[in-house]
């Protein structure tokens, strides 16, 4: 069965299905119960599952993640919501020094199946701390997995896969993609959570991105096609681990790679992809890997976000530089 849904709704349905299938799945976060979350992703779930499974927590991010760790020790599968990207940092110690390392510390005696949902990224014109892309911190940290869906279909399936994972998952939801609708195959078999995927085939250059950047890349490919340039677009989907095989295979075909992301470029996920592709596909590359990123400055006031965030023109500029090399 296929339905046309927004990603906010598809994640909501994914959460609902996961909760119906396993009563150890509980939701925790600020304003997620009665209000349904500031983005309404958990709307209606408290009504269905009650306050013992949809917990409106005190306003304390370290407390949310820290108590989730204790609940996981007890056998629960907590799904925590951090209200905005920039609000995750009060929980940083519990995520980095506790959650990420607990599995290793316990040497197989205890799994930590905790999902931390974080709405992230720009394009919503919001105030400071509400538009950031902190994925590199988590992708860099061993012991965590990092997923970011780009479509409503992936939102629906990947949230369920994240909950089924026996490892901690940082689940990054692109705010800019919460509301556009897309087809969701409710009963169809999902793509494995950690596979990257070619979402448009092309021959002249490969462009890779994740989250909200994927639709930007598709727009760029459409414009490029009008100019006679054929771009292959890859949706990363998983930022840790990264599935390189489809990227390398694509680069072997196109000979050029552009990596695009909203996050600042220095020491970023895009940097890691550029380095790895240089190692694995050196003789196939006809130009250096190009990166298109947010600038290495704090996320600016919203009036400047259009300048700060990569857009179609900056992506195509990088494609031109790669092709003209």
């Amino acid at each position, binding site marked *: 069965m296929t339905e046309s849904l927004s990603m906010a709704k598809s994640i909501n349905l994914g959460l609902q299905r996961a909760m119906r299938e396993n009563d150890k799945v509980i939701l925790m976060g600020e304003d997620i119960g009665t209000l349904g979350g500031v983005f309404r992703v958990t709307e209606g779930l408290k009504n269905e599952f009650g306050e013992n499974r949809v917990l409106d927590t005190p306003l304390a991010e370290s407390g949310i993640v820290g108590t989730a760790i204790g*609940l996981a020790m007890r056998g629960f599968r907590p799904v925590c919501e951090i209200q905005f990207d920039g609000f995750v940092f009060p929980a940083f110690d519990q995520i980095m020094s*506790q959650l990420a390392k607990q599995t290793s510390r316990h040497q197989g005696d205890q799994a930590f199946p905790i999902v931390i949902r974080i709405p992230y990224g720009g394009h919503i014109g919001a105030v400071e701390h509400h538009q950031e892309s902190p994925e590199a911190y988590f992708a860099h940290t061993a012991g965590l997995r990092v997923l970011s869906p780009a479509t409503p279909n992936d939102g629906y399936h990947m949230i369920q896969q994240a909950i089924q994972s026996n490892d901690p998952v940082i689940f990054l939801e692109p705010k800019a993609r919460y509301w556009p609708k897309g087809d969701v195959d409710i009963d169809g078999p999902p793509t494995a959570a950690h596979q990257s995927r070619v979402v448009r085939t092309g021959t002249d250059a490969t462009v890779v991105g994740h989250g909200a950047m994927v639709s930007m890349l598709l727009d760029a490919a459409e414009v490029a096609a009008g100019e006679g340039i054929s771009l292959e677009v890859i949706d990363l989907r998983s930022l840790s681990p990264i599935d390189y095989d489809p990227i390398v295979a694509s680069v072997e075909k196109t000979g050029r790679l552009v990596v695009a992301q909203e996050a600042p470029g220095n020491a970023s996920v895009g940097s890691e992809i550029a380095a790895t592709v240089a190692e694995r596909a050196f003789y196939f590359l006809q130009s250096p890997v190009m990166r298109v990123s947010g600038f290495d400055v704090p996320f600016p006031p919203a009036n400047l976000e259009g300048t700060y965030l990569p857009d179609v023109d900056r992506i195509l500029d990088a494609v031109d530089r790669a092709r003209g090399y």
Partner: protein
Amino acid sequence: MPYTEATLQLLSIDGTLVESDRTAEYRALVDKLTDVQLQNFYREMVVTRRFDIESGNLQRQGQLALWVPSLGQEAAQVGSAFATRKQDTIFPTYREHAVARIRGIDPVAILSLLRGVTNGGWNPNESRFRLYTLVLATQTLHAAGYAMGIALEGKSGTGKPDVDEATLVYFGDGASSEGDTNEALVFAQSYQSPIVFFLQNNQYAISVPVSRQSRSPLYKRGEGFGIESCQIDGNDVLISYAVTKVALDDTRAGKGPRFIEAQTYRLGAHTTSDDPTKYREQAEEDLWKERDPIARFEKFLRGKGESDKFFDAVKTEGEDLAADVRARVLALKPPPSDVMFDHAYTDEHPLVSAQKAWLAEYEASFGGDR
């Protein structure tokens, strides 16, 4: 002075029982203790101290990276640990060696952590004694979450004390300033979770005295969150046992969290890397030596007619343990390199698997010379 009007005490420094209306409930519990139980209190304090000294020696001889002594805090730990039921779950910091022993943890498992063999050491689901935590106060939130889980499962407050569960979390005066401790108190009180916060106030966070952590007694922190709280003489094993027992019984029965501040003193250094002569006076240490938890309890037991034979046997047990621990620590071997890969994740992880395979191939390339 650490002991105030509020400090609950059953056993005075000279080893005699103190009568007070405020402690009558606790005295009744202590009066029910058998001679064997009282002997066990003493035995665990003495044997843990001997283990503690041996571990310090091992560190000085280069066999451990670090040692974290619990010297002087034995009564707070032993009394509270014996107050738990087997179904209760304990969350330690990293200094609760006596509690670990009472929960059946092999002392060598603790030392394997400090010898760099493991970052864990035991199965916390079997012992219900969770792993040591080195980032201060983080375990208070884990304990609060675990306690929330007990309540969500309906395993507390059913009125069946043999089945109902509780959580006991240890932390210190330094950790009381951490945000996590305060968030744990918020969560515990908000969800009315079955948890006892046991604060061992050993007067120092490494070098900084407790007066820098708080200008009011720390048990009042608990009260500030609306949690029933009290302060005890942490060098009195009997009050530590009785107050913790009542607190655990209350919280197991669904009456909400409890908070205990145990006034004690770290007779030794913070760790073997520390030098207490730089920040405290000999006179202060001497004062606390007079309040030593073991000497006090020995006077009490002798007053009850306990024989030299018993005290000699405990001393021998401590010596035997020290020798055994030393031999087994020296025999600890480095783990194989596979272990750092095998449990980084629970499910298959392609990057880690690839790096594990690469390392095996790399090491094999030396033809066994490496």
